[in-house]
């Protein structure tokens, strides 16, 4: 396993930990951006250039901004007044996620024998991706288009000021 992989993995996991542990919400959102960037670099390490650039374009360029806007519009960037930032039932949550990680880790390490060895680098061009999107995957593409339109209209309606509402 190369040094670059370990470095990127360390950055990504550190960013993830920061995103769920920090008190200031905007710092959490910025740590989330670091996670997204680290993941995009991991995708590039895996020779999936299109997925990596799409990850930066969509996640860092749009979803991170969305999270930050939501934090500012709901005034959550001010420090909480009482009780701290963790909910009352934090112990159960931690136990569950530790159990999930244990199960997943055990499965991965146990099936090492069945996992394939290093194979040659796939040479995927954007032309192939385009042909696949318009050929084999055209139905999912159209459904995702419909879904995005519905999500767009739905998000606008949900977050809109209603008539007669106190502003």
């Amino acid at each position: 396993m190369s040094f670059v992989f370990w470095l990127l993995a360390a950055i990504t996991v550190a960013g993830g930990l920061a995103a769920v542990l920090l008190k200031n919400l905007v710092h959490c959102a910025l740590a989330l951006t670091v996670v997204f960037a680290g993941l995009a670099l991991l995708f590039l390490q895996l020779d999936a250039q299109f997925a990596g650039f799409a990850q930066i374009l969509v996640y860092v360029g749009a979803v991170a901004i969305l999270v930050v806007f939501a934090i500012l519009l709901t005034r959550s960037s001010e420090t909480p007044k009482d009780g701290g930032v963790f909910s009352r039932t934090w112990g159960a949550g931690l136990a569950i996620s530790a159990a999930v990680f244990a199960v997943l880790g055990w499965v991965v390490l146990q099936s090492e024998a069945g996992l394939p060895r290093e194979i040659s680098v796939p040479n995927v061009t954007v032309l192939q991706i385009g042909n696949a999107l318009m050929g084999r995957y055209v139905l999912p593409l159209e459904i995702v288009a419909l879904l995005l339109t519905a999500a767009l209209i739905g998000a606008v309606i949900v977050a809109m000021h209603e008539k007669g509402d106190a502003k």
Partner: protein
Amino acid sequence: MLEKADQLFVLLRDWVVGFLPPGWRDAAGVVLGVIGIVAVFPGLFAITTVLERKGLGRMQNRIGPNRTGPFGILQPIADAIKSLTKEDIVPLNADAVVHFLAPVFLVVVVFMGFAVLPVGRNMVLVDMDASLLFYFAMGASTEVSIFMAGWSSRNKYSLLGAMRAVAQMISYEVPLLMSSIVVVMMTGSLSLVRIVEAQNQYTWGLPHWYIFTPWGCAAFVMYAIAATAETNRSPFDLPEGESELVAGYFTEYSGFKFALFFLGEYLGMLSISGLGTTLFLGGWSAPLAALNWVPSWIWFFSKVMLSIVVLIWVRGTLPRLRQDQLMNFAWKFVVPMTLLNLMVAALWRFLGEGWARWVVCSAILVIVYVAAGRAGMRGKHFGPRTYRYAE
């Protein structure tokens, strides 16, 4: 001999790299390319600042800076010395780490965008299959740094400026991408090198630049509007309007960090002009087949500087748009026009060669543009001014 002038920098790099052992040659070539980019584009930035101040001055009926050197051309050096020696004030309440990282992040991301622009024949730093996608990914990342700058200053005006800037940049990402998609569609590749090579052909001595086609001209106009808005230039510079918001999201920055923001903004302008040149104006190809003896990189930089001059000209001429006016303009006018342009470009491909497709496509675009413009103006009343007072 002319071939050598054209490939001057490539040959220079190969000669320097030849002194090293074979294992090191690739990495050294890349490092030399990076040094070239870091040297050339900030140099162009310096020229742009003088050009802007003198140009705007003349348009406003005054002389620009004329004390430092003949015609003020040593002004950038004076500006550099000033910003390097000014005190770096960080507000007490500001979030120091984020405050420091914001300009660094901006400059890094903007420099990454330069890596995929084909500056001349065989002169790209990185030739990727999806280089246009990489460029837009880097462009989208600049919004995060603007938000970081505005929020970390703990200043209402900075935050307001940052929110406005981010909203504006996100709104104009869509027309920027959509007008570039037309070029990708007609070329059949996302690679910028391939796009320039497709425009490097000549019929009767005239080039095949995309700006000379109806859909290309419309796409170029929309790209120019979106690019002006993306880089927060007038008439879309409400986020940093000096008369409204002090200085917007970089109010609390002084000294070297302000210089970095300034550098980042102007480099963004150069970068997006470079992309517009590559997509629509033929990149490094010469305007007439007879002029191919001039080196390709001279053509590229001339076209980029021409775009910069037009940007400065527009800044000096048009008034500023209000925030809601510019968002309205983006979503209700420019985006539908880009969609129509996509369909017209497809029609262009399917009508086959000949004069018919020129007439049909131009007619569709012009008629819809005029009709949409007239329809948009119908609701506006231009009578005597009415006032609405704050309660």
